[in-house]
Each structure stands twice: as structure tokens, then as C-alpha cells.
């Protein structure tokens, strides 16, 4: 068993938290993992990504080779499209549809969403809207993770446990709302 996952977004959108949840769950499942992330200059509103690799065997490279990723989890639609060349021939693309526009030349969002929809194995979700409905706008990243949860190679309850562990310090409310966000994502259908 081996899953190679690209997690993408813009600096500050919570992709490190997505990686951390999958990380906790991977450790609990007793699997090997390597997770590279971006620190430094790009975090100032630039494009950021994380390569997350989990496997029942030892992992060599910290970076996923081109065309070998099983899954893209993106918190932002243009960033999802940016990493499409990384996917293997039956990989899945899970993305938020709400754009993060912090550049003057951001392309037409509809054009981006159309291109994403042309890719057969995609789930496009307005995670910001779902998170707002749950009165937790900051949980959009966890909604996306919920959508991606059937494809990450980990049991759903392990992801739930990871959320409990990760948000424990912030109190029961935060834990519960993130569990709901995960569930809402899991139940979402295109």
C-alpha cells in the first residue's frame, strides 16, 4: 500500500494542518511517511504545496516523482490545476472552488473550473460555503480533506482521531466543528 499526495494552496490557507491530520493518522496506522513542506518566502501569499507520501514500505524520496501522485488535495482551484501534471493516470483531483485572489492577473475562475471539470476524476466543492454554514469558516481545509478522505489510503476513523488529537488543545468546540467539517466533506457529492 502506497499513497502519494500533493497538498496545494496559498500561504496561510491551512495546508500544513491538512498534512498534520494525515500525518497523525498515518503514524497511528503504523505506516511510513515522508512529508515535505514549504517554509520561507513563498509563505507570504505565494503558492505553497506539500508532498505527502505514505506507505507500508520505507520511502526513499522526499519529493513525489512527476506523474506518480495518486491524489491532489487543493484548497484553491488555480493551485489544483498547477499540480495536475503530477498526477498518475488514475489519480484523483479534489479541490475547493473558491478562488484566493491576491494577484491582479488572476485568470477567469470559470475557465479554471471548466478545465478542472474536464479532468474525469475530480471532486470540486465550495468548501468555504460549507464551512460557513457550519459557522466555522476556518475549517474549509478540513472540508476538503473530508472530500479526499476516501482516497488517502487511511481509515476514516483514523482521520477523526487525528483531528481529536490535533485540536484537543483548542477545546471541545473546535474539535467537534472540525469533525463535522470532515463529515460534511466526506458526504459531499459532485
Amino acid at each position, binding site marked *: 500500500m502506497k499513497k502519494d499526495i500533493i497538498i496545494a494552496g496559498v500561504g496561510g490557507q491551512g495546508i500544513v494542518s491538512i498534512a498534520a491530520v494525515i500525518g497523525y493518522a498515518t503514524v497511528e496506522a503504523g505506516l511510513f511517511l515522508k512529508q*515535505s513542506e514549504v*517554509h520561507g518566502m513563498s509563505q507570504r501569499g505565494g503558492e505553497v504545496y506539500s508532498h505527502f507520501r505514505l506507505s507500508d514500505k520505507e520511502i526513499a524520496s522526499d519529493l513525489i516523482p512527476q506523474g506518480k501522485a495518486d491524489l491532489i488535495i487543493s484548497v484553491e482551484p*488555480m493551485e489544483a490545476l498547477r499540480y495536475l*501534471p503530477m498526477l498518475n493516470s488514475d489519480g484523483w483531483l479534489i479541490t475547493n472552488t473558491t478562488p484566493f485572489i491576491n494577484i*491582479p*492577473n488572476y485568470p477567469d475562475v470559470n475557465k479554471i473550473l471548466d478545465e478542472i471539470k474536464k479532468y474525469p476524476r475530480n471532486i470540486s466543492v465550495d468548501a468555504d460555503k460549507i464551512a460557513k454554514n457550519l459557522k466555522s469558516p476556518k475549517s474549509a481545509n478540513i472540508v476538503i480533506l473530508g472530500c479526499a478522505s476516501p482516497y488517502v489510503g487511511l481509515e476514516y476513523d483514523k482521520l477523526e482521531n487525528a483531528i481529536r488529537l490535533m485540536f484537543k488543545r483548542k477545546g471541545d468546540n473546535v474539535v467537534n466543528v472540525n469533525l463535522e467539517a470532515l463529515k460534511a466533506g466526506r458526504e459531499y457529492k459532485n
Partner: protein
Amino acid sequence: MNKTLLLGDEAIAQGALDSGISGVYAYPGTPSTEIMEYVQRTKDGKEGKVHCTWSANEKTAMEAALGMSYTGKRALVCMKHVGLNVAADPFMCSAITGANGGLIIASADDPSMHSSQNEQDSRFYGKFAMVPVLEPSNQQESYDMMHYGYDLSEKYQVPVLLRITTRLAHSRSSVNTIEPKEQKPVYTPEDSIQYVLLPSNARKRYKKLLGIQNSLEEESENSIYNKYFEGKDKSLGIIVSGIAYNYFIENFDYGDIPYPFIKVSQYPLPKKMIEKLCDECKEILVIEEGYPLIEESLSGLLRRGIKVRGRFDGSIPRDGELNPNIVAKSLGIEVQQTIPISDTIVGRPPSLCDGCPHSDTFRAINEAMSGYSKGRNFSDIGCYTLGALPPYQSINSCVDMGASITMAKGAADAGLLPSISVIGDSTFTHSGITGLLDAVNDKSPITVFILDNYTTAMTGGQFSPANGRIEEICKGIGVEEEHIKIIEPLKKNHRENVLIIKEEVAYNGVSVIIPRRECVVTLTQKSKEKKKAK
């Protein structure tokens, strides 16, 4: 034995702690920052059992670590690759003085320049100083090599350079840790003049350093971190170093590798091992992250011996970070064809945060300077370097820490009047003060903006050594009090700030303007912490 998930940087920190270090010295710099930050979060760090406060720059950090090593205690000093240029003077001379307690210099290189102004390879500094270099390939080795490195350092009384690159620094994996060792007791050097590099003594010490070179090579030859792997297909022999080893292995999916190869993670290079490979194989491919150091040693100036492939002959691009695909191509392995990247996508360069004080400062500077021709604003390294990009396009240089003030001075000396300079608070205390002193002594007609946001922002908000005393420092080195102006960079103060800037730019001498307002990122963090405390 414990299992922990650690970044490469964190594995170095944990390894150093478990080796019984008494202190870490560092100035923040991507991708090395997390080493110090990790130590600061530990119990021993918080309780002050291990020294772990930030230094003003890499030179002061290196010297303090050398002082700790002098006392017989183990010390770690960390920096990014260009930081080693700043620390080069004490680093080079520490090879001559030698170490008493174990001394490791961790330098994190940034090939592809993700957050840097060049991609220099620290291994050259190791070779230059003639000290052992360790280059871990993964997080576990990063941890283990600290134990190994301190023992090596003490065995030969020599500082050891540990070199990693961005990808390992910022990649997390599981690491097995062992029981921590006790800190060393104080014992000053047996030879009371070991550290006195008077010419007569330095000559002796240098001969001593030259004298251990054969032994260091022997250590590399027998090191568990340098390994020769046999292979049946002798048409090609391969040398892989550091993290390149992982990309190489990835391409064979843990299956059999047909070629003989050497994994190199300790320098000086294991000569006998390499000799064997060259004798056995028809040609050699060198895969190394960074500059072609091994490749150059093998091929020589005239390239007359065995055919050596690598970055020089284009088998691997001459610049930039490696990845599994680049390594695949150099091995003739086909890379998966995939969906081409969409034309719709545009780049998303980093930018100043919403509400950043620097944006108000740049707007004011741009307006105040609008009456002069462009190209007069010398700047420096920090978040404000983003002032080079639209919409500000305000600055005209960013070279090395502190160069803003001295370059503006040189330009003013040459007659470019007015010349101005923009530098951050932490960069100013790192390397700007001496340059300002030069300007004061020459009465150079420059205006220096010291952007005080109370933090070292670019690397994530570390302690800034100026600590609210910038105007005092300026006064102390002789800037006239009436030409030190503090402004608050806010929209509502824009008109007033523009007037102050115009006035100081017109002054025929050194002016300092301090736009002072807290970084929005640290401000938000603090208010969150306050909320939590309630």
C-alpha cells in the same frame, strides 16, 4: 528508543540535544531557522539548561559557539548557506584553532534559491577549511550524524561542518532517538595558547590541521555513512551524495540496482572507494545536490581520465535542485508522460501581507522620491525586498545583509544624489551598523530608512536584537539627533510622512528615518495568545 516525527532541521536539533550540547547559536535564515526554534521549544531550552537565544548575526553566533567549545562543552551553530559567508572568518580560523568540546556548524543550502539570493554549496567551505563535512541523506541520518559528528570533532579536535539542503531541512519523517547524553564538564584547553593565532603559533596549528588530513580521509574510507554497493553492469559507475541518494533509490523502487555505486555522506572524499569504482567501470555518473564538487574533483581541469558525467556535460542541469525526474533522465530512465500544464495558470509571487507597515512606507518613499529619476533606492534582505515587485517597484538592490547602507554610500560618493537606503531592524543590527558608521564618518549625503517592525519577520517572527533601541544605536554611532526621525507608517499619516522624507532626503548629510509599526503577523499572533490566556 523513541520514535518521533521530525523535520530534517528538527532531527539535527534533537540529535544535538541528545549528544549533550550546552548551547545553540544562530541567526534565523531559511532553511535553517527550525533548528534553533526546535531547541527553544524543548524543556531544556525553556529552562535555560541549553543556551538557545538568537545571536545578532552568524559571525557572532560562530564565535560564541567557538567560545563554548573552548570550555570543553559541546556547541552547535546553525545558519543558512549565505550566513556561512558572514561567519567565514571565524569558521576558517576555527579550523586552525581546533575545537576542544565538540563543535558542529550546521549550514543549510538552498539550491533553486527558494528563499535565497544564490545557491552556493557549503561543502566547498568544508574543503576550503579542511574540516570533515557530513551530508545526511535523510532525517534519521541527520539525527545520528550529530552523535557521530560530535565524537569525530572531539577525536580530532576539529570543527565539523554538517551540510543539508532545503528539501531535507523541511521534510518530515519518523526518527528513532536514543537516550540523551549528559553535558560535558568545563575543562579549558590543555595547551594554553592553542587559540592564540599569532603567526608563530598559527603556523604550528596549521601544520597540525594538515597533519590530520590523512586520518580524516581514513575516517571517510571506513565511515558507516560512505558505502560501496556492488553491481553487475560495469558500463556505468555512479556516485550519489546526500539527499541525491534518495532520488536515485526512488528510481529503482527498492529493486536491484544494476550498476556499482557509492553513497557519499562524509568528506573528505573516500579516495580508495572512488578509485575502485573508476577501475571497475567504463564511465562515472556523479549525482550531487548543489555545485559539482565531487564531479570536478574526479574530472580535473583537463578531463583526460575516465569519462565523468554530471552537471558539467549536461547529464544533469548545471543549476537548481535535484528531483527524482532529473535523476531518472541522467540514468536514461523514461519519465512518466503526463497531462501538460494548463496555459491558464499564472504565477503567484509572494507579496507583502495586507496591512503590512512596509507597504505604507514604500508608498510614502515613492511619492517623496517622485521628483528624482529612478534607481536610487538601495535595499536589503527581508520582507521589504518584496518592495521590488509591483505595485511598489520601489527598490533597486538586494545583495547581502547590510549592503543597502554601504551601497547607497558608495553611490552617493560617486555623485548619485540623493541616494537612499531601506533596511529592516534585524538586518540593521545584523550587519548595517558598521556601514552606517562609515557613512557618519564621511558625512555621506544618504537617507537611511530603518524599517522597525520589532521582529525578524521574513523567517517567521523571531526576536529582533535591536529590541526598540534603533534610535539609541544611531545616536551612539554619531548620527545627528535632529536627523533621526521616527514616523508611523499608516495611511492617515501619509502626507506628513512624505514631507518628513522629502526634508531629510534634501539634507546634505546622514539622515535616519525609522518607520515604526509592529509586523501584522506577530501582532495577530500576540492577540491570539492573549485571547487564549483569557
